[in-house]
């Protein structure tokens, strides 16, 4: 995998898209160094932490549909490592990267190779919930901690599983009380027709109706749009405009988020307030352009959060990536590295997967760019703050700006 990427880089190094992504530029040298180190010492040496090496596996989408998210996560993880001397808890880190591709079918073989051939002490990364689910069994079988930083399905046994992002229903759960309080009338809920859509929109609908809110959708059921191919949202939007909806709650990501938001502003529904999760997060915002202005959205992070950890994070990030602000994906991967760093620092003697897993469970509050958070004892996902943001014009660029705290949520 790293070999293949390295060759790509050599061939395409002069392309402008690469020139604006400095993390790629530094990677091949890093990977080469990692490969050399790998052949030299096959594992970790007991005793002296100064010379001990701990091998960490990172699985993320470096190709395919979720490549933008995978790249953000990789950049976030690498940023933490680079700014901490390439060490976790005093031990030199040997980072082995593998491609998750589009989902479980490619992710599981990649992770299996990291576990069986590379004997990594912990696994991190993982973009898609499906990949996480497939790899969780592997992690439990080999007793290796899995620290995911994006999609997290509900799991029965979370002994070896950790997540630094959030559970899919959390954003909707966090914003529902605010919408109930500020919107005078029924709300139309809409999302894509797949598991992620059901969980995200379901989180909102459950809490909102429990609080006495009413959906404007026919039959009181959310509207599902064909996934992944729905280039046309206008018929849905004219339906919404004809209903008695006073606001819209939507979850869409990537290409779908661009289509939904640009068409929203050109439809009869354009004057209804639009609330959402992920609608305007990441590179989609610039593609949406002026149509995104004024969209309310809920997230666990925003680059303009005012706390010391975030100021450091933003300063470090902007020296490496001048063309874009960090996303929640980058932040969650940065935090996964921080979790490993803090956990390994608690270990005396030889670092083993079992000791890392135990140490993560004892971390308590974690200081993070998103504000402080902790793992829930039950399913090992964050108990954290959620923020209400709105898209505003910031000079020539559009940006998500924090409006207020919403709630602290986690289970």
């Amino acid at each position: 995998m790293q070999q293949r990427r390295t060759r790509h880089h050599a061939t395409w190094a002069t392309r402008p898209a690469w020139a604006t992504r400095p993390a790629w530029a530094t990677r091949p040298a890093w990977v080469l160094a990692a490969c050399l180190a790998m052949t030299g010492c096959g594992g970790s040496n007991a005793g002296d932490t100064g010379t001990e090496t701990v091998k960490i596996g990172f699985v993320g989408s470096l190709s395919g549909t979720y490549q933008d998210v995978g790249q953000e996560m990789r950049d976030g993880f690498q940023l933490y490592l680079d700014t901490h001397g390439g060490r976790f808890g005093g031990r030199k880190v040997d980072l082995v990267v593998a491609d998750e591709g589009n989902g479980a079918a490619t992710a599981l073989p990649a992770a299996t190779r990291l576990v069986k051939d590379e004997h990594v002490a912990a696994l991190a990364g993982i973009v898609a919930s499906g990949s996480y689910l497939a790899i969780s069994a592997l992690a439990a079988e080999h007793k290796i901690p899995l620290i995911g930083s994006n999609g997290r399905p509900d799991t029965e046994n979370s002994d070896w599983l950790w997540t630094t992002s959030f559970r899919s229903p959390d954003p909707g759960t966090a914003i529902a009380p605010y919408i109930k309080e500020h919107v005078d009338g029924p709300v139309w809920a809409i999302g894509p027709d797949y598991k992620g859509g059901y969980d995200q929109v379901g989180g909102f609908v459950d809490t909102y109706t429990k609080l006495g809110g009413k959906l404007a959708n026919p039959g009181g059921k959310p509207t599902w749009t064909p996934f992944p191919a729905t280039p046309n949202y206008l018929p849905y939007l004219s339906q919404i405009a004809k209903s008695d909806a006073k606001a819209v709650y939507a979850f869409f990501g990537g290409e779908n988020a661009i289509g939904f938001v640009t068409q929203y502003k050109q439809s009869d529904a354009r004057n209804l307030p639009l609330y959402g999760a992920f609608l305007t997060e990441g590179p989609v915002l610039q593609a949406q352009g002026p149509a995104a202005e004024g969209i309310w959205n809920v997230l666990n992070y925003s680059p303009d959060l005012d706390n010391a950890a975030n100021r450091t994070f933003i300063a470090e990030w902007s020296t490496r990536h001048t063309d874009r602000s960090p996303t929640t994906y980058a932040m969650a991967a940065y935090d996964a590295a921080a979790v490993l760093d803090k956990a390994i620092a608690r270990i005396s003697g030889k670092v083993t997967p079992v000791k890392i897993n135990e140490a993560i469970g004892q971390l308590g509050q974690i200081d993070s760019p998103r504000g402080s958070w902790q793992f829930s004892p039950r399913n090992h996902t964050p108990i954290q703050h959620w923020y209400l943001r709105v898209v505003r014009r910031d000079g020539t660029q559009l940006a998500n700006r924090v409006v207020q705290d919403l709630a602290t949520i986690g289970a």
Partner: protein
Amino acid sequence: MGPLNALDAYLIPVIDGVAYGLLLFTLAAPLTLVFGAGGVLNLAHGSLYALGAYAAALISDGSWTSLALAAAAGTFAGAAGGGLLSAALMPVTGRGHLAQALLTFGVALVAGAALVLAFGPDNLRPTVPAGLDTTVSLAGHRYPAYRLAFIAIAAALAAGGWLVLARSRAGARLRAMVDDPHMLACLGTNPRTVLAAVLTVGGALAGLTGVLGAPIIGPGPGTADTVLLLSLVIVVVGGLGSVGGAVAAAVGVGQVQSLGVVLAPTWTPYLLFAAMALALLVRRQPLPTGGHA
């Protein structure tokens, strides 16, 4: 209440069904042309669209000149892609549809990776001129101006395509090649030249469609797959290789997807493929394989 109210409720979905249907037709037209005239099922069709869409996203900055430039660049890139494809197909000439489809599928995979390497993994959108990036009022409803313009352009493309195919000498050669390539060769026209021309023109058309369609289906890592899938549905519903059938299928599917949201909201996720299954059942014709059609 009454018929006027009902008309009002369905007006926007019907107009939108036409606009969206014509978008689907322009997506599928190059695919059906290349299959009908060249006998090649071009699975790299979506990549040619993506090339044009990237040209639009990179070049079009909101001025009319830049949009025209993007259209020229996208058409040229698509034509070059189609030309390369015809060169790549030379060695497998005469080995049947499967070899050709496999080769174009391989090209699509390589092209998909190359496009992401060249343009990055983000989904992009072009900035269209302000006159198009607005809404117009249609019987009291807001409707995107760009889509209305698209109806006109797509209708012109369809009419022009029909004129060339049915009325011009080049079109006659094309139809001759579909019917009897050996006789065409006897008359002094090399079928290979015609095939190369068809792929190049089909590529140019796909590139141009990519430029024009980019504000609705923009370039990104998933674009080629989306476009290929939608085009294949249209081509299958309309009958392989039939341009007229593709027009009818596209407008029909456009209406199903747009009116269906109003009439059968709970079924919308399945409507596209339900329409395809229904069309196949109703037509009950075997696919045209090797002269047994």
